[in-house]
């Protein structure tokens, strides 16, 4: 009886959760005109890849994907590196002001990101960064949440590992690259996956710092297509393509997502 209820509920919820994605993929394979009038248009009859051809023949879409890659991949790499370095420093090194600096960094998490938007817009206008990658890359080079996760992880690792290495004459850099980095790989992978998803999906910041269509990442580009009557199929083709990287990252790193969420919340 209990089993029956579980499986029934599971089936209903699974259908609800998968439905939007099915509509997205099937919708992208449909002729444009059909999309407006028929609520069942997405059913798999007469599939065509015309929407994909259309979206790629419009060169701007490829540019949007490229912009997204640039403003996502660079911060992902640097955020992983800085999370590892700073996590190591705050977990293992002794220096003046260590705790104070760390907790001041952490306190800023309390400030909603939206508060920074207006002053940063003014600053970036001064720097000449509006409509450039800089506005989206430079402020995101490191992030405190990743540092927190690595620090948390390394604090749980016994000291004698590095002490043995020190006795063998290793310096900090060698210890970092030979011991700390391989050891904290799972946490660093978590930091990377989170950074990837949040940057790839970010709409708010690029929306404000970028006004030139050529500089849009795919989120802002797709948003500019939304709601234009008559191109739901093309929209969904764009959505499907922009979803692929997220989906692949998710498939390969799912474990790191769920572990990361649990780590950052409940210790």
């Amino acid at each position, binding site marked *: 009886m209990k089993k029956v209820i579980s499986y029934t509920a599971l089936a209903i*919820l699974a259908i609800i959760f998968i439905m939007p994605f099915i509509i997205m993929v099937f919708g992208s394979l449909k002729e444009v005109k059909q999309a407006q009038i028929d609520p069942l248009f997405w059913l798999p009859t007469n599939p065509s890849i015309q929407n994909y051809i259309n979206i790629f023949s419009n060169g701007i879409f490829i540019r949007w994907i490229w912009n997204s890659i640039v403003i996502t991949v660079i911060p992902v790499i640097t955020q992983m590196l800085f999370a590892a370095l700073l996590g190591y420093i705050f977990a293992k090194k002794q220096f003046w002001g260590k705790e104070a600096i760390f907790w001041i960094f952490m306190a800023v998490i309390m400030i909603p990101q939206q508060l920074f938007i207006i002053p940063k817009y003014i600053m970036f206008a001064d720097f000449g960064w509006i409509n450039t990658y800089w506005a989206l890359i430079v402020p995101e080079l490191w992030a405190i949440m990743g540092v927190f996760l690595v620090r948390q992880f390394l604090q749980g690792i016994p000291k004698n590992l590095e002490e043995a290495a020190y006795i063998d004459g290793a310096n900090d850099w060698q210890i970092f690259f030979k011991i700390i980095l391989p050891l904290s790989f799972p946490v660093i992978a978590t930091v990377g996956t989170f950074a990837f998803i949040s940057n790839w999906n970010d709409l708010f910041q690029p929306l404000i710092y970028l006004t030139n269509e050529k500089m849009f990442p795919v989120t802002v580009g797709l948003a500019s297509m939304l709601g234009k009557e008559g191109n739901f199929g093309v929209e969904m083709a764009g959505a499907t393509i922009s979803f692929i990287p997220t989906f692949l990252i998710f498939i390969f790193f799912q474990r790191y997502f769920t572990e990361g969420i649990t780590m950052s919340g409940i210790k």
Partner: protein
Amino acid sequence: MTSTTSKQSFSARIKRELNKNLLVYVVLIPVIIHFLIFQIYPFALSFYLTFHDWKIIGDPEFVGLKHWKNLFDDEIAWKAIWNTVKFSIYYIVPTMALGLILAVIINSGVKYSGFFKGLFFLPVVTSFVIIAGIWGWLFRGTEDGFINYLIGFVGIDPQLFLSSSSQALLVLAGLSIFKVAGTTMIYYYAGLQSIDRQLYEAARIDGASPWKIFWKVTFPMLKPIHFYVAITTTIGSFQIFDSAFLLTNGGPNYSTTTIVYYLYHQGFTSLNLSYAAVLSYVLFFIILIIALIQRKYIGKDPNYY
């Protein structure tokens, strides 16, 4: 003489410290400079802005509390705050409940639970733009809209949804519930796994029904998770922007103008940067109060970490 020795020992000390902590300085100094430029300075600049009129050219002009006073006479600002509170009411409890239901099902020993956990989590990693695009199509307010088509089967008349000032915010809340429930599921799943199995067995031996076990054992044991999830979803709900921007542009009749949407609108459509900064501080204070409530309760109850 004495000064040279102390100088030497001072430089020797610096040398020793550098030898010991060179890595710390090489990494931390640029990071602190970055932090001052991109976090502390904007935070302060934003506060400064709220007391000034910002001009594209020329120096900002001090205007005292003008922008703060405007807030109190601005009906749309209050409506935005109220809309955001309403959004929270529509969104928080359903997101928690759905996340808990998903976690309980996943944890109940069904087959392929890993796959389903992934499926329920998928909307979390999908961008708002994609989900909003699909949502907008599902909830079209015409007779041939997908949801209208479905509810037609049970005899409900077509609804306006996003074009109705009483329904639009509900549709946006539905989108957020769908998008975020996977996160709450992960928290609850971790909580469920940490509950001692013996508690369930003891309850079963006492002859309690599964329903009773859930409400008397599982639900109260999840108290720290309920609290944590409530706080994070509340903070998240006050920052809602993407769906209001993508689907309704704050309308119809300002019914989906949330705090952040209004901030965006004031700052970047009306170019009222100083007033937008005031609104961002309103958001900051609201979130600060929620966080302080969290801090207070965490401090009191030894069950919270």
